[in-house]
């Protein structure tokens, strides 16, 4: 059995670790609240955007356009949204796995990294990192999303990349975050949109040509998807960290109570031993 001093020292170190994890949990709870508000505020905008784009797509069904058919290039771009810092449980590795196990070959894929953890993990795995925008991961703003989508669409227009994906973590609620791979371009036709469009009461009239409308609307749509991904990823990151730190605090608690028990037993047995020795000594004298 370990000595009393060893057990005491161990307990102390676990206690100070627990204090740190507790503090980190509180910090991420506060950050989560803010990030969640951001994510919820962007939802109105996103829904309006989605409806408009679906209605124009329904109207232009069968039309040939690079945004709908893809370009000749076989290269794929993946926007990978992870966090800049660790200690968030499986948050980062789950997103990275979407790429490494998602059928993206190392030669035909370029990575647009948002978040240092994903960038480093994918660079180690041998993927080409085309751009690193890690500084926007923590507090995403709309102009950041515009810059990123501008770069992507430029590369798409030049034919450098043929498909654009986004790997991020969808924020369902505080405890449930789903790593998601979303195809940004060519625009995928959502299931059943024809019926939806037929149901919608207001037929959409565009003042310009359909093709021009696509040219102008699709970039805005991609930007809004990227922005939505960024704010949801930020919320998920803090949610994941909060959970990880919560269970770390719980585990520390458990270890401390086990060690307390051990410590008390060790103390008890050392007292018993001393007593036995004293009594044995006293008996020897008399």
């Amino acid at each position, binding site marked *: 059995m370990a000595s009393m001093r060893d057990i005491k020292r161990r307990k102390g170190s676990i206690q100070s670790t627990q204090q740190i994890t507790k503090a980190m949990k509180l910090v991420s709870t506060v950050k989560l609240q803010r990030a969640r508000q*951001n994510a919820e*505020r*962007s939802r*109105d*905008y*996103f829904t*309006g*955007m989605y409806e*408009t784009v679906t209605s*124009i797509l329904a109207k232009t069904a069968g039309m040939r356009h690079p945004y709908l058919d893809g370009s000749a290039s076989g290269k794929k771009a993946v926007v990978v949204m992870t966090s800049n810092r660790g200690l968030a449980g499986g948050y980062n590795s789950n997103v990275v796995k979407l790429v490494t196990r998602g059928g993206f070959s190392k030669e035909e894929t370029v990575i647009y990294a948002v978040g240092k953890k994903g960038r480093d993990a994918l660079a180690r795995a041998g993927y080409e990192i085309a751009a690193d925008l890690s500084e926007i991961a923590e507090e995403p*703003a*709309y102009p950041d*999303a*515009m810059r990123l989508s501008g770069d992507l669409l430029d590369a798409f227009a030049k034919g450098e990349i043929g498909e654009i994906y986004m790997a991020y973590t969808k924020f369902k609620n505080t405890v449930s975050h789903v790593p998601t791979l979303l195809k940004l371009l060519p625009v995928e036709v959502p299931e059943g949109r024809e019926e939806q469009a037929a149901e919608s009461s*207001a*037929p*959409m*009239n*565009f*003042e*310009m040509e359909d093709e*021009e*409308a696509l040219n*102008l*609307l699709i970039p*805005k749509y991609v*930007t*809004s998807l990227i*922005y939505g991904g960024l704010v949801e990823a930020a919320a998920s990151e803090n949610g994941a960290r909060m959970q990880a730190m919560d269970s770390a605090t719980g585990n520390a608690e458990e270890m401390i109570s086990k060690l307390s028990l051990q410590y008390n037993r060790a103390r008890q047995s050392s007292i018993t031993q001393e007593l036995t020795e004293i009594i044995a000594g006293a008996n020897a004298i008399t």
Partner: protein
Amino acid sequence: MEQFKLRIITPDRVFYEGDAEMVEFNTTEGEIGILPGHIPMTVIVKPGILTITEKEDSKEAALHAGFAEILPEGVTILAEIIEWPGEIDEARAEAAKRRAEERIRENTPETDMARAEAALLRAIARINVLK
């Protein structure tokens, strides 16, 4: 006068929500003014001044990018960038205008003309809305 519901949404906030008698702004097809009962239409925004005429007074804002969904009973503007006059930094807008004008004047091969023109339009819209 008759009114319609006007909603202006940006990615991070609801910019304006209320009843308006008329709303005017600049689109890719020219300036338009919308009254209640307009035919359904979707238009793309060009940088310019957005004027909201309410029952009592009228409001102005600098609208830079986005699009508008017009229905007979209401208008929803999805604005990527929009600012109230109070949120605009005049000195910065003036500087941006000068920079954009210079870029267009020089017109070197690497100048992105579309970008410079868009920047100039944005700066002019900001300055005009302050006047």
